[in-house]
C-alpha cells in the first residue's frame, strides 16, 4: 500500500491547484465560500468566468476519449475536484460534466455524442437534472411525469421539483414515464430537452438561506424530438443507473471543508476574548482538532476511493456511500462548530457586522446540501446495510399485499 503520487501526478495536481489559485484571486468581494456557491445569482458572472477558463484548459473534458477532445485521467478529475474544492471555486456544471457526459459516453449513439458533448466540454451548455418529483424524492422510480410518443416527438406533461440550477440551465435530461400504466422501474425513458422549449415553466424554490438553487419545473404539452432519447424507450431506468464513470470520491466537498476549517483556525488565532486568543481555549482546541481528524479521515478515504475506482470503476461502492454520509455529517457539524465559536456573531448574515464574511451563518443553513441531496444519509445507510453488509431488506406492506393478491388469485 503506497500513498505516494507519481511525479507526473504531482505535477498535474500542482497545475490544477495553481490554475484554481489564480482564478480564486478574481473572486468577487461578496462571494461567500461554500459548496453551494455554484448557484448564487450574484455569482453568475464569476461562475461563467471560471467555467470558460476551465474549458480553455480542457478541464471540462477530463477522462473523455481523444475523439471528443478528452485529456487526462480519472485521477486528474480527482485532482481538479480537490483544487476547486480547496479554493471553493464554482464553474463546473456537475449535471453536464459529472452526470450526463459519462452517460452519453457510455450509452449514447454517435449522433447524440456529437450533438451534445462539445457544448459540455466547451462550457457553452449548462444542464439540469429532471429527476425528482413531489412524490418521488428518495423513491425516484415513482416518477409520474409522462412523455407520450406521438409521431416523431414525445409530448411531455407533469412536474419535476428540487431541480437544481434549472433557472440557469440551457438543457435538461431526465426520467419520464413513457407508458403511464407502467409501474416503478419499467416504462421510464431517459430524455434530453431544450429548457427554453414552449410549455416549460420554471418556478424558483428558495433554499433555507434564501439561495436560489432549486426550482419547480412544470411541463405542459412540451414537444421533444424523438431522437433526443438516450437508450431505448422504456429503458430509461437502466440508463440513469449506468453512471459507472461518476467520480465518487467526494473529494471536492472534502477539500472545501478542509479549507473552511483552515479559515476557522485563522479566526481562532486572530480573535481575542478577554485578551486571550480563542485558539488557547482547550475546549476549542479539542473540538477543532476533532474536526480536523474527521476531515483528514475523509480525505484519505477519498483518495482510496479515487485510486480504487481508477483501477476498477465498480470498486469501493459501499465505501463511497460511507464517505458521502460521513462528509455530509461533517458539513453539518462544521457549520455548527463554526457558528458556536463565533458566539453572537455566529448568527450574523453577510453584512458589515458579519465575521469571516458571514460564511459560517451561511454554512449553518446550507448544512443539508450533502446530507439530503443525491440520496439522503438514511438511503445511503440502507445501501450499506442491504448491499454492503448483505442484511435482509425489511418487508414493504405493498410487496406483501401483492404477494397476498397473487396467492389469492391462484385460487
Amino acid at each position: 500500500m503506497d500513498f505516494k503520487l507519481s511525479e507526473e501526478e504531482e505535477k498535474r495536481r500542482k497545475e490544477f491547484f495553481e490554475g484554481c489559485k489564480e482564478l480564486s484571486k478574481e473572486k468577487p468581494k461578496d462571494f461567500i465560500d461554500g459548496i453551494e456557491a455554484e448557484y448564487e445569482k450574484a455569482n453568475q458572472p464569476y461562475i461563467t468566468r471560471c467555467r470558460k477558463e476551465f474549458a480553455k484548459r480542457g478541464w471540462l473534458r477530463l477522462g473523455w476519449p481523444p475523439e471528443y477532445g478528452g485529456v487526462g485521467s480519472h485521477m486528474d478529475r480527482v485532482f481538479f475536484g480537490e483544487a476547486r474544492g480547496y479554493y471553493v471555486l464554482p464553474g463546473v456544471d456537475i449535471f453536464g460534466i459529472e452526470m450526463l457526459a459519462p452517460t452519453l459516453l457510455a450509452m449514447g449513439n454517435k449522433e447524440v455524442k456529437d450533438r451534445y458533448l462539445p457544448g459540455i466540454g466547451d462550457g457553452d451548455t449548462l444542464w439540469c437534472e429532471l429527476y425528482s418529483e413531489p412524490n418521488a424524492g428518495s423513491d425516484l422510480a415513482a416518477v409520474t411525469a409522462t412523455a407520450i410518443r406521438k409521431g416523431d416527438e414525445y409530448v411531455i406533461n407533469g412536474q419535476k421539483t428540487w431541480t437544481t440550477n434549472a433557472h440557469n440551465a440551457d438543457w435538461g435530461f431526465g426520467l419520464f414515464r413513457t407508458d403511464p400504466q407502467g409501474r416503478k422501474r419499467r416504462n421510464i425513458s431517459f430524455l434530453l430537452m431544450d429548457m427554453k422549449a414552449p410549455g416549460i415553466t420554471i418556478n424558483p424554490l428558495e433554499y433555507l438561506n434564501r439561495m436560489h438553487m432549486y426550482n419547480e419545473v412544470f411541463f405542459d404539452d412540451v414537444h421533444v424530438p424523438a431522437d433526443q432519447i438516450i437508450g431505448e424507450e422504456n429503458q430509461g431506468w437502466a440508463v440513469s443507473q449506468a453512471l459507472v464513470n461518476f467520480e465518487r470520491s467526494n473529494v471536492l466537498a472534502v477539500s472545501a471543508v478542509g479549507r473552511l476549517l483552515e479559515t476557522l483556525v485563522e479566526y481562532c488565532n486572530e480573535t481575542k476574548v478577554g485578551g486571550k486568543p480563542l485558539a488557547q481555549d482547550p475546549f476549542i482546541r479539542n473540538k477543532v482538532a476533532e474536526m480536523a481528524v474527521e476531515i483528514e479521515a475523509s480525505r484519505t478515504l477519498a483518495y482510496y476511493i479515487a485510486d480504487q475506482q481508477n483501477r476498477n470503476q465498480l470498486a469501493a461502492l459501499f465505501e463511497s456511500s460511507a464517505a458521502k454520509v460521513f462528509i455530509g455529517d461533517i458539513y453539518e457539524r462544521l457549520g455548527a462548530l463554526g457558528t458556536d465559536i463565533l458566539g453572537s456573531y455566529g448568527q450574523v448574515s453577510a453584512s458589515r457586522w458579519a465575521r469571516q464574511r458571514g460564511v459560517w451563518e451561511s454554512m449553518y443553513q446550507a448544512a443539508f446540501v450533502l446530507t439530503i441531496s443525491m440520496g439522503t444519509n438514511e438511503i445511503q445507510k440502507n445501501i450499506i446495510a442491504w448491499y454492503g453488509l448483505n442484511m435482509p431488506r425489511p418487508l414493504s406492506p405493498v410487496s406483501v399485499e401483492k404477494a397476498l393478491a397473487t396467492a389469492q388469485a391462484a385460487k
Partner: protein
Amino acid sequence: MDTSFTEEQTMLRKSTADFLVEKYPEAKVREIEESDTGHDLEIWRGMAELGWMGLVIPEEYEGMGMTFQDLSIVLEEMGRNIAPGPFFCTVLEGAYPILDAGSEEQKKEFLPKIANGELIFTLALLEADDIHDASGIAVRAVPKGDDFVINGIKLFVEQAINADYMIVVTRTREGASPEDGITLFIVDAKAPGVHCEVIPTIGMEKLCEASFKDVAVPKKNILGELDKGLPIVRKVMERAAIAKASESLGAMDGIVPMTNDYLKDRVQYDEPLAQFQALQHIMADMFISLTTSKYLVYKAVWMESEGLPCAKEVAMAKSYVNQNYKELSRWMIRLYGGNGTHREFKPGLYYRRAKAASIAFGDTGFQREKIARAIGLVS
C-alpha cells in the same frame, strides 16, 4: 408537588394558542419576518387586549398580576408558533427590570403603558466584543449637569428600531473591578443622537446596532442605583434565559408531533415514511430529547416564579434546551428531506430560530461554565 398544570393554566394555554394560530399563520410569520420592522401593529394591539404585555405586571400598575409561570405558558405557545415581534423584549427586558429595580415613579410612569401596549421596551447590553459580563461594558455615560451623556455602540439590541425606550447598560466609573460602575438608564429610543439599524441575522428577529452619540439622559432615568446596576442586569439575563428556554421548549413541543405527522403522511416506496424503523428510532430519540427537556425547564420556571435562587437550574435548562432545540429542528429538516430545506416550509423557520435562541442570553458554553462553578468545580 403537583407536576400538572392548573386548570387556569391549561385554559391560558388554549386561549393563547387560539389567538396565535389565528393571528400568526405561517404565512403571516414569514411576512412579519421579511418586513423591515418585524413588528405587526394589529397583532400587537390584539395581544394588548388580551393583556399579555401586562400579564406579570401587578394590578396596581394596570397589569394582570399573574406569575412568571403563567407567562412561560404564553411564551411556550409563542415559541410553538414562532411568533415574531417585540413581546419578549418588552416584557422580559423592559417590564421586569422596572419591576425589579424601578423607583415608584418609574413604575407608575412606564408599567401601565407597557401593560396596555403603548410602549415597546428593549435592553441594550452587548457590545462589539460580545462578552456577556461586566467586563464587556465599555459604553460610557458621563455626568453633565442634570443629565448623563451616553456615547458608544451597542449590538444585538432586539427590536431597537421599534422600541420607544431602551434600557441601556453603561459604564459610569472605571473601578478596580469591572463589576463596579455599571449603571442602567431608561433611554428614549427616539432621542437625538440615538441611531438604530437592523443587523441581518439567521433568526431575523431585528437584532439591531444601536449607536449613541452624545445622548443626554436625565438622572431620574437611572434604573436602580448609580454604579450598582450589575445585579439588575444579571437578574434580567437569568430571567430572560429561562424565558427563552420556555419559548424554545414550546417550539420543540411543536416539532415532535409535526414531524411525526409528516412521516405518517409522506409516502415513499409505497409506504408512509413512518413505517421505517430507522426513522421510528429517530422519532423516539426526538421524543426523549423533548421529554427530558420539559421538566428541567418547568422546574427552573417554577423556581424563578417562586423567587427561589435558581441560577444553576436556569443555566442547566437553558444550556440543555439550546442544544436540543437546535438538534430537533435539524432532525425535522432531515426527516422532511428536500421539503425540509425550503425556506417556505416550517422546519427551516424552527431551524433558524433555534440557532438564534441558543445564542440569546447565554450560549451553551457560557451556561456550562456557570454550571461548572455551581456544581463546585474549582476555578
